[in-house]
């Protein structure tokens, strides 16, 4: 799969926080989850990609073209959903749409109207009166109505109830059916369990790993058992280990050796959250 977006050597110093040599790429036709705890640098990275923050170093390519030299083309071909919305709340949905739509050369008003109807949104409603879930749906309707090749979303599910989150995930699955790509940052990893093809974990402004989700889940195992199974040799097999008076649980990347050396333990498939905490909690 060819990359839609390539980020290399991206650096940004922001007060006490530093984004260090951030490099990764997004494959075409996939949903890539961008995960990390709060303050890991997800929003900073997305703002750098979108040109809202100016990088200290590094470059970003979109379909092999430097975005710095092709800003208009890049922004014409991406759709954006930001966590805080950034909408003028005093405008109606129609007024805000008119402002946004005029910027895109390939805005599809029929598609927008279809999405508004599909999401149950009224054009004459004021943005300030929308619930968080409805506002997110509106942001998505705006972001996918100009045939964008890449949808970039910053924490879209944060603060939403499970039903709306499920609906949003269905919308994304629908969106990538046409070969389009999604880059989705979230600290709610359960959403990515359902939809992500690829995962990028960052911590303290650095990329920890970039892996296909299924490979990652296959490679790792969540081990539970009695403490008597633990000794110096078996402890070293774990990325993280939590011990209590009743037993232990830990994440391992050495499933085969664990099976060999620890006969009386339970080996389960981990969740993305288990893996994320396994790597950043070490």
């Amino acid at each position, binding site marked *: 799969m060819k990359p839609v977006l390539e980020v290399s050597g991206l650096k940004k110093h922001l007060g006490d926080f530093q984004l260090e040599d951030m490099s990764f790429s997004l494959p075409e036709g996939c949903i890539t989850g961008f995960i990390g705890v709060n303050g890991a640098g997800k929003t900073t990275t997305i703002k750098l990609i*979108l*040109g809202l923050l100016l990088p200290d170093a590094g470059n970003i390519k979109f379909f092999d073209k430097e975005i710095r030299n092709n800003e208009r083309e890049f922004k014409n071909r991406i759709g*954006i959903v930001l966590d805080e*919305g950034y*909408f*003028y709340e*005093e405008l109606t949905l129609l007024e805000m749409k008119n402002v946004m739509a*005029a*910027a895109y050369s390939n805005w599809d008003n029929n598609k927008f109207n279809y999405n508004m109807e599909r999401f149950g949104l009224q054009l004459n409603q004021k943005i300030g009166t929308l619930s968080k879930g409805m506002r997110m749906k509106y942001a998505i309707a705006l972001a996918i109505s100009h045939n964008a090749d890449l949808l970039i979303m910053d924490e879209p599910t944060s603060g939403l109830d499970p039903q709306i989150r499920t609906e949003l995930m269905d919308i994304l699955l629908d969106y990538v059916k046409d070969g389009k790509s999604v880059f989705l940052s979230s600290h709610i990893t359960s959403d990515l369990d359902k939809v992500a093809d690829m995962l990028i974990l960052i911590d303290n402004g650095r990329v920890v790993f970039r892996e296909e989700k299924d490979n990652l889940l296959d490679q790792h195992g969540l081990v539970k058992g009695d403490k008597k199974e633990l000794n110096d040799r078996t402890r070293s097999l774990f990325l993280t280990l939590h011990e209590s008076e009743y037993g232990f649980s830990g994440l391992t990347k050495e499933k085969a050796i664990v099976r060999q050396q620890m006969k009386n333990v339970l080996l389960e498939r981990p969740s993305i959250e288990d893996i994320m905490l396994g790597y950043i909690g070490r």
Partner: protein
Amino acid sequence: MLIPLLKKDFLLAKKYWVIMMIAAIVFPVFIQTKLILGEVFLSFFLSTLYIVFLLFSTVSMVEEKYRGAALLCTTPYTRKALVKSKYLFIISIFVGCYIFYTLTVLLSPIKIGMLDLYDIGRTFLIITAVFGIAIPVQYRFGYEKTRYIFFFFIFVTPFILPNIMKLLQNNESTVRDLISFPGPILGLLLVGAALVIGGISLNLSIQIYSKKDL
């Protein structure tokens, strides 16, 4: 690219439309008939300055509150276009005030004086100078800090103004030479000076905003 952004600014200030339209008609009449009898320039200048200031502040406040410009910067709108639209907004309000003033002169039963090119030039120059400073300062420091900076300047104005007046008095001959130009030519010269100031200010604002983290 600029027209939708201009429309957006007018939409952000829509709750003041009616009040400002009334102000553009009533203020000049009131100033000329009750406060400074027959003073065409001052009545047009003060009412225009008030209207431009109020609408510009309203839009700036909304921009600061919702940070919508950041969202627009993620679309194909360039930062340059966003800055240009702010200047266009000021010019549009100025043109609007002129149209309302002229309509008032033509239609009002109360007689007020017609604007000439010299009055228009003077008003345009002062408004361009004020907002030519205010806009780059606002892009550099944000809306809140700019308010404090301008409060400070309003506070020190009574101390500085006498010195400026003294300076003008000392250079009276130069001022007299300028004023001796025929009104329309002087008016055009003032409009030209305003465009130069506006152009410098626009470039400065574009440079400041292009380097700003949003």
